[in-house]
């Protein structure tokens, strides 16, 4: 029997010719990413276990991207970034994106590929569950905890179980108004939040091939919301062009064999997807936006690693251009690079920030995770009361965006923007006619 792309990568990383689902193997990591929420604890584990004087296994392999609690007055949050700074200095780490300096990047999952840390065929571990995002580059990427990360930091290796793969094949062409977010929400709705627990979710087919890199990232980003260990899309010319534009390092592209073994294969027709939302409090409570016209919202939030990339803002701007929002609308570029690109990107001769300002959106937030996960009470865009927020983020568990009394409705940037215009959940097609 052949192997899947995930199995090929893990076989290579463990020095074997073949691996099978369920095998427990030691794999070598190419990149270990950590941020301000889990970095200090990871460093704590690393020092406790390997000693105060220990050195990381490979300086080039460790990437530290503070992004979660950056724009807050909370002293502990600042202390945590200081722990990262001290460690970077002590170890002489070259890849550190320090807040308050020109190297500051923003949300780790968008910053990693922008800075050339994502390459096909590699193994990337991150202390963040949405590390699965980077499967969009044809690599094996998964989230781990501090203890495992401390282990990787010292040894460059981790014992993992090879996941079985589930294939999602999407034929045809997505309709106007339908984004990658709608595709992944629908899939999560069909599978349930534990439908892919422990599995690799492999996305393929003409509709996936047609997606841009930003949109592929959105799909892989939410694999974890179905319980997946990783999401993955085979690298193609688009991937290779993107990666080569961001790094000189060589890499190897893998593809699944025709006779590879899958736990399950799901086939979808792209034309069947509609703009949809996930209602509180679970990403699998998925309904078509058009069915929920009476569902009132209090605010809209466009940002995060899922929905705060350049294309997400272009999509939102297309809807908001020349119109006025009816609810508080928060715009948060995921990274500094995205913010710069938004200043340059023009629709009808206007840059995206001008469009958002004219539409009556709130003054944009600084690139970071902001209110995607609530955070300290002074966090930009945080739901501090009973707000119902339509959001381009990825989770809507109780209290996810702040107060336990608030509610999050997950949507694509098009749907979030259309809903901001009406104050109710709205199918963006109404504004695209």
């Amino acid at each position, binding site marked *: 029997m052949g192997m899947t792309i995930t199995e090929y990568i893990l076989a290579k990383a463990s020095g074997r010719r073949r691996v099978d689902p369920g095998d*427990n193997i*030691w794999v070598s990591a190419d990149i270990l990413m950590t941020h301000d*929420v*889990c970095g*200090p*604890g990871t*460093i*704590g*584990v690393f020092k*406790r*276990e390997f000693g105060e004087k220990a050195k990381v296994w490979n300086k080039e392999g460790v990437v530290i991207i503070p992004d*979660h*609690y950056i724009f807050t007055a*909370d002293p*502990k*949050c600042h202390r*945590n970034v200081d*722990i990262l700074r001290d460690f970077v200095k002590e170890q002489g780490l070259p890849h550190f994106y320090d807040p308050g300096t020109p190297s500051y990047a923003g949300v780790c999952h968008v910053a990693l590929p922008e800075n050339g840390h994502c390459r096909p065929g590699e193994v990337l571990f*991150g*202390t*963040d*569950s949405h*590390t699965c995002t980077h499967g969009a580059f044809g690599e094996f990427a998964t*989230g*781990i*905890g*501090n*203890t*495992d990360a401390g*282990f990787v930091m*010292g*040894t460059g290796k981790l*014992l993992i179980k090879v996941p079985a793969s589930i294939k999602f094949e999407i034929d045809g062409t997505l309709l106007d108004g339908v984004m990658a977010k709608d595709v992944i929400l629908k899939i999560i709705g069909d599978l349930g*939040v*534990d439908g892919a*627990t*422990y599995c690799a979710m492999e996305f393929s087919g003409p509709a996936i091939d047609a997606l841009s890199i930003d949109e592929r990232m959105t799909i892989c980003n939410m694999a*974890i919301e179905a*319980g997946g*260990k990783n999401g993955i899309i085979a690298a193609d010319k688009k991937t290779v062009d993107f990666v080569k534009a961001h790094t000189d390092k060589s890499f190897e592209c893998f593809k699944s064999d025709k006779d590879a073994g899958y736990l399950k294969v799901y086939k979808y027709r792209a034309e069947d997807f509609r703009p949809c939302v996930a209602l509180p409090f*679970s990403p699998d409570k998925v309904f078509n936006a058009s069915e929920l016209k009476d569902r009132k919202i209090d605010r809209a939030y466009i940002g995060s690693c899922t929905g705060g990339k350049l294309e997400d803002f272009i999509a939102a701007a297309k809807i908001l251009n020349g119109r006025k929002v009816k609810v508080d609308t928060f715009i948060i570029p995921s990274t500094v690079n995205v913010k710069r690109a938004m200043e340059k990107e023009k629709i009808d001769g206007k840059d995206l920030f001008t469009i958002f300002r004219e539409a009556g959106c709130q003054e944009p937030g600084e690139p970071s995770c902001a209110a995607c*996960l*609530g*955070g*300290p*009470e002074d966090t930009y865009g945080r739901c501090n009361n009973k707000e119902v927020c339509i959001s381009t983020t990825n*989770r809507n*568990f*109780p*209290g*996810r965006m702040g107060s*336990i009394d608030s509610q999050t409705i997950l949507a694509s940037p098009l749907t979030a923007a259309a809903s901001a215009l009406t104050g109710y959940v709205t199918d963006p097609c109404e504004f695209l006619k």
Partner: protein
Amino acid sequence: MSKKIIKGKVFVLGDNIDTDQIIPAKYLNLVPTIPEEYKKLGSYALSGLPAEHKTSYIRNGGMETEYPIIIAGRNFGCGSSREHAPISLGAAGCEAVIASSFARIFFRNCISTGELYPIETATDIAGNFKTGDEAEITIEGADVHITSNGKKYTLKSLGDVLEVIDSGGIFTYARKAGMI
């Protein structure tokens, strides 16, 4: 084969208890490897449960729980990779979570840290318990069961991971096995 017994009151929860409910994001500024902050994380364990949960896991102002055993439904620990989640439970004095299934990263973090036993059930047994019931879990190799009110429920074996948790987590295990 050593026998392990966990005895005490149970705390009953439903399906899909995510990491924001186990430890809300606003407490993630605490660093688990700093001893005072480890303890503090314990005091906030399960503080993100919605209001319909009448009983708190930690009594107001307390640092530890009176419930060493949690019994839940499907997909316990879904959501983020924050190790703060199993750590807050462990720091609060939780010794085992029994659930019909676990989210992968949470499960893995329990093992790597050695904080608590994540034990799966073959069927959803949460409905047979109420918060406050006295129970006793026995782990003896592949034989894992819980008894309460004179009834015995068989639980799934922990398999290979029992040894890792028993030895105190992935580091002690890897050292014992000569891997590091």
